């Protein structure tokens, strides 16, 4: 798995920890840049919208859901691959998982946080958002447990907490490594973070057991989260959304876009953090194969969805289908089909699959396709429901577009902070993959 020769144990520590401990001006400039983009493009329009009302966005009477919600699904989707893939590969004992899973899980965490932010932006009165939590209150009123949005709140909080614990638990020995390599305040902080990890046999045993337990726990959770997000749509009676295929459709799409996201993040880590030694062609090869499989499942489900609409045969469903395939947003629909169903097939070629630059382009195209997929789901169905007189049309306003751009900056900011706080590659697990006989330190 090591393209450029096997590193020694000490080199692994040095390579990974130097990313955390040595900070150059380029990092600060980058962090400052993403933070200002997040502030200007995300938070300032949002604050404006808070004062004025959600009317600042482009939604209207017939299209009460807009880009905010489609971006919410997109970010939840992006969160799907990290923890899920990491857990599945841990259980199946795959060696290639070990150098990429930490960043993949961080991606899960941060895209979940961005998704939650989008819920906040979406709400009309976000200052009362705590009413959707089952907190005992003076009104003596619980939230409505029949509501798919309530399922959402539950599922996402559980997923957020579980994946935080999962990534934290996996990093415990690495926090200890940071502690041992640093001095001063950082040393004291990481003593606390590492829970006084000493590396005894008993500690390793407990960690391994707990980690596997959590991996098993997280898998059904991840599948349920996006199923539940899909039920926000599928439990309505809206033609074009009221499909039983929606849960698998969303889960598959989520893992698909998440895996493509991992490829993008891997590219950046490798390029900017000098992890060429640890993230190699094997990872690319495996992720590429996974992407092909997921893309084919995704295409199959898409065909099923079209078939369901056509076979259902009600005039409402047919009208929704017609609008989706030939209406105003049809170019976006066909773009999505091109990027998510046909572009991934290029990866059948080994040459493309093993080239970092080409894979970067493919992975970004896939995620652009998935972003539009979510937009199409929201924008083509619910503005045009049953009564033709009430048919509406949705087009995002500049505030929504700006907030969408800003959300990527928020994700980047969180990720940049992450690589300085947590070792971006699992040190101890990379060491497990080294061949002991060939070590030279």
């Amino acid at each position, binding site marked *: 798995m090591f393209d450029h020769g096997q590193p020694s144990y000490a080199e692994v520590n040095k390579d990974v920890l130097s990313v955390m401990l040595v900070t150059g001006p380029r990092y600060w400039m980058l962090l400052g840049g993403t933070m200002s983009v997040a502030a200007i493009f995300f938070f300032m329009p949002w604050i404006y919208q808070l004062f*004025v*009302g*959600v*009317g600042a966005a482009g*939604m*209207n*009477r*017939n299209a*009460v*859901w807009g880009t905010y919600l489609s971006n919410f699904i997109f970010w939840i989707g992006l969160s799907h691959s990290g923890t899920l893939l990491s857990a599945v590969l841990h259980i199946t004992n795959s060696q290639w998982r070990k150098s990429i899973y930490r960043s993949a899980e961080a991606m899960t965490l941060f895209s979940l946080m961005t998704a939650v932010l989008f819920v906040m932006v*979406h*709400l*009309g*009165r*976000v200052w*009362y*958002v705590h*009413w*959707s939590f089952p907190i005992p209150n003076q009104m003596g*009123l*619980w*939230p*409505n447990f*029949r*509501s*798919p*949005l*309530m399922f959402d*709140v539950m599922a996402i909080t559980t997923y957020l907490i579980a994946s935080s614990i999962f990534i934290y638990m996996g990093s415990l020995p690495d926090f200890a490594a940071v502690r041992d390599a640093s001095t001063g305040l950082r040393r004291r902080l990481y003593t606390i973070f590492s829970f006084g990890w000493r590396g005894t046999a008993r500690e390793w045993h407990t960690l391994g057991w707990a980690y596997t337990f959590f991996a098993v726990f997280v898998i059904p959770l991840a599948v349920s989260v996006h199923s539940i997000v899909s039920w*926000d749509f599928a*439990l*309505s*009676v*809206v033609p074009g959304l009221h499909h039983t295929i929606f849960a698998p459709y969303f889960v598959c799409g989520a893992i698909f876009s998440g895996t493509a996201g991992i490829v993008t993040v891997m590219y950046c880590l490798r390029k900017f953090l000098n992890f060429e030694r640890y993230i190699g062609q094997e990872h690319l090869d495996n992720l590429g194969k996974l992407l092909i499989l997921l893309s084919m499942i995704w295409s199959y489900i898409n065909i099923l969805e079209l078939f369901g609409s056509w076979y259902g045969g*009600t005039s409402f469903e047919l009208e929704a289908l017609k609008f989706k395939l030939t209406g105003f947003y049809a170019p976006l629909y066909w773009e999505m089909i091109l990027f998510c169903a046909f572009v991934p097939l290029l990866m059948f070629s080994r040459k493309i699959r093993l080239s970092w630059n080409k894979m970067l382009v493919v992975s970004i195209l896939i995620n652009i396709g998935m972003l539009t997929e979510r937009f199409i789901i929201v924008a083509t169905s*619910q503005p045009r*429901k*049953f*009564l*033709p*007189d*009430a048919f*509406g049309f949705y087009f995002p306003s500049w505030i929504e577009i700006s907030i969408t751009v800003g959300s990527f900056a928020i994700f980047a900011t969180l990720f940049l902070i992450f690589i300085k706080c947590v070792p971006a590659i699992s040190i101890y697990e990379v060491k497990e993959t080294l061949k002991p006989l060939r070590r030279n330190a």
Partner: protein
Amino acid sequence: MSTFFEKLKAYSKPGYYEKFDYHWTMTIDLDRCTGCEACVVACQAENNLPIVGEKQFARSREIKWIRIERYWEGDYPDVKMGFIPMLCQHCDDAPCETACPVFATYHNQDGLNTQIYNRCIGTRTCAVYCPYDVRYFNWFTYTWDEPLEQQLNPDVTVREKGVMEKCTFCIQRIRIAKDNAKDDDRRRVRDGEVVPACVQSCPTEAMVFGDSNDPDARVTKMMKNPRGYTVLKELNTTPSIVYLKKAQS
């Protein structure tokens, strides 16, 4: 107090909603409707509906709890136009009620689908789930220029930004009628005592409103009309509004 416990017992049994105290129902005779929109104006005045302004109207953000939908039939020169007043159908099995995470919309014991503005957090899910498109969102906090604020109805809340609103069947009038009934030591509201603003203002008396639990009420008799139908019946929302279709010659 004993009636309270009796009610509590009755309401905790499944299927209570089929035996409401009252079941407020409306019939709309499309044969009589001329599409004059008097009901729309009356509703605007009664329920403090904001005037959103020309710009927001163009972005289809108007708030009209009752609207007249216009449908054309046939090609020129044989064109026929039909009207259908569309307002909240107060469905007994309302899709919007299950959608709200905070119980801002629920079914009350009068068979009304109610909206509690103070409870609403503005997820707008109810509006998406509503097949009749009759829920309206407050995109901004609307204001009334002086002296227009003097004409606001004191019995109805003025809504702030970020809140969903819709037809209430003029619940303030229902409440007043029930209060009066209680004061007179009567047990039930008499037929014709509650008249929502739209019904009151209809010049052709196309709309009839009443309690369909009362077998002698005018609305109960109207509902039995063979011309009666409910909109989007196939969705099984069991609306409380019965439309009487145009008589065929």
